[in-house]
């Protein structure tokens, strides 16, 4: 089983142009900022919006605009789980789960509920369920129809943080028992990394990066991914032993290569001083602390200056440096801490 999709569509100012290949048993997380087209992509795969292009699932052509072929949603083996469950409010939990089943629906629905430990809620109405229970029922309602393609649209984001972990575990368990193609849309990196084998990063309707979570976060190719990985991303022209940034500043880096390049600097590699540091660092410039943010054991300092960066320092360093919003500091980055790859 596999999915092979080429989807192009235009709506008002927005254009989506995505190629996606997913094999069975693989969970792909589609990540991206709001308005990137993630939900539209899911709706296109479900057949809910007309597209230009081609969608093939397990060898069956679901969409082929060139051949004028379009299989309507109800005849696709596609399941959708929405952000906020969308259980039918006028039906019991059992009837909701049985809705998509053809034969022996009540018995099969009950088995699914029992297996998920929700058997005692079978006769409850959706409004009587907690948010977590409702989302679990919604997942079961979709899985019970045995779809070949499972589409999850931010399945956890409407839930309280306190129960999110519990539902994520359940989701993870259910996903591992599901043999079709799985696509998860999310803007929560934790959700993506916990559930997905592969990330596809969507921005402005286009795939900007894809790969395993480790690959993607190691070599961010967009501001969104850099923020997600918590690293500084710079872009400039490689000049052998240094990079010429767009601002004109030279950033020393071994193996800077040539041409258009990305450079990543981990915030922990950004050192701060009250006076100009002596010694080895080749990248030294003046900066200004714009704001400070305590995160766990570390303080993230957002710097402006020749090269805008985020530095991560310890709380004791903040005290020693008398760091405060607006403080002038010297910023140093060792050349060996700058990792460079082609843009």
């Amino acid at each position, binding site marked *: 089983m596999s999915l092979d999709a080429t989807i192009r569509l235009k709506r008002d100012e927005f254009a989506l142009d995505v190629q996606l290949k997913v094999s069975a048993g693989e969970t792909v997380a589609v990540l991206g900022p709001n308005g990137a087209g993630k939900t539209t992509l899911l709706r296109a795969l479900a057949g809910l919006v007309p597209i230009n292009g081609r969608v093939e699932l397990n060898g069956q052509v679901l969409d082929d605009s060139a051949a004028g072929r379009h299989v309507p949603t109800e005849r696709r083996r*596609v399941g959708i789980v929405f952000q906020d469950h969308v259980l039918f409010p*006028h039906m019991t939990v059992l009837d909701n789960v049985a809705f998509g089943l053809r034969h022996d629906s009540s018995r099969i629905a009950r088995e699914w509920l029992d297996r998920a430990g929700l058997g005692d809620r079978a006769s409850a109405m959706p409004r009587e369920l907690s948010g977590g229970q409702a989302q679990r029922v919604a997942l079961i309602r979709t899985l019970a*129809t045995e779809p070949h393609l499972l589409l999850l649209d931010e399945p956890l984001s409407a839930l309280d943080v306190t129960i999110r972990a519990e539902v994520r575990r359940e989701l993870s368990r259910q996903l591992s028992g599901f043999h079709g193609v799985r696509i998860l849309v999310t803007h929560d990196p934790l959700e993506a990394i916990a559930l997905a084998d592969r990330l596809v990063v969507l921005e402005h309707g286009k795939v900007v990066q894809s790969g395993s979570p480790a690959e993607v976060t190691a070599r961010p190719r967009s501001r969104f991914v850099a923020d997600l990985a918590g690293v500084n991303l710079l872009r400039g022209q490689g000049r052998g032993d240094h990079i010429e940034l767009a601002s004109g500043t030279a950033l020393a880096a071994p193996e800077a290569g040539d041409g258009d390049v990305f450079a990543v600097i981990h915030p922990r590699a950004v050192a701060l001083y009250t006076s100009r540091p002596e010694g080895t660092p080749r990248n030294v410039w003046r900066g200004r602390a714009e704001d400070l943010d305590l995160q766990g054991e570390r303080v993230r300092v957002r710097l402006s200056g020749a090269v805008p960066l985020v530095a991560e320092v310890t709380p004791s360093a903040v005290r020693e440096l008398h760091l405060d919003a607006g403080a002038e500091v010297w910023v140093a980055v060792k050349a060996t801490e700058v990792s460079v790859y082609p843009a």
Partner: protein
Amino acid sequence: MVLAAAGLLLFLLPLAGLVARAPWDQVGPALIAPETATALGLSLFCSLSATAVALVLGIPLALLLARTSGTLRAVLRALTTLPMVLPPVVGGVALLLAFGRRGLVGAPLYGAFGIQIPFTTAAAVIAETFVAMPFLVIAVEAGLRALDPRYEEAARALGATGWRVFARVTLPLLRPAIFSGAVLCWARALGEFGATITFAGDLPGRTQTIPLAVYVALETRPEGAIALSLILLAVSLAILIGMRDRWLGWL
């Protein structure tokens, strides 16, 4: 404040007059008079039939309205709401010109089958439907627009085809809107006067509903008119009280 009070008085005074001047000793006999029973029965029959017709035709119309957009929708909407703003007498004249014996549709109907619509009970039902159906259409359309489209999408993704989605998901979710629309429609049909008297005439036992009977009785036996008016007032109050939550919700 003063203006608001004046506004309230404008509503209250006529009602007070109706209740104060009611010849209570004659209300009883007037209520059980056979003409009253006939008019009341006919009123109920016609208004309920009109509501039934409005449900059958109005719900699909509301669906059509909710699913179109742009100019077409504006035109359809204007057409369906026209009877709400049109003076009912004009509506009656229009109906006569369409379904009358020499009317647009009436003439061929009469020529081919000898069917004559005006001045029959059917005409009263048509007149009431014409005037009252917009209330139902508007309420159901508002309900449809407020409906989260993802319920229908979820149903389709679960394999339900168009008809099943409509019967099992859309219609049940629309129930409150349909109910309040039907009650409004029925209340409007019950009180219909202008279009009915123009198109269906005033034939006791066939087209003389309570509002018509009230109008006619006012000339000959005012106490009967008052008694009949009290019946309509009671029915309207009962609807208002029974619907107060939904009513406020809808408006």
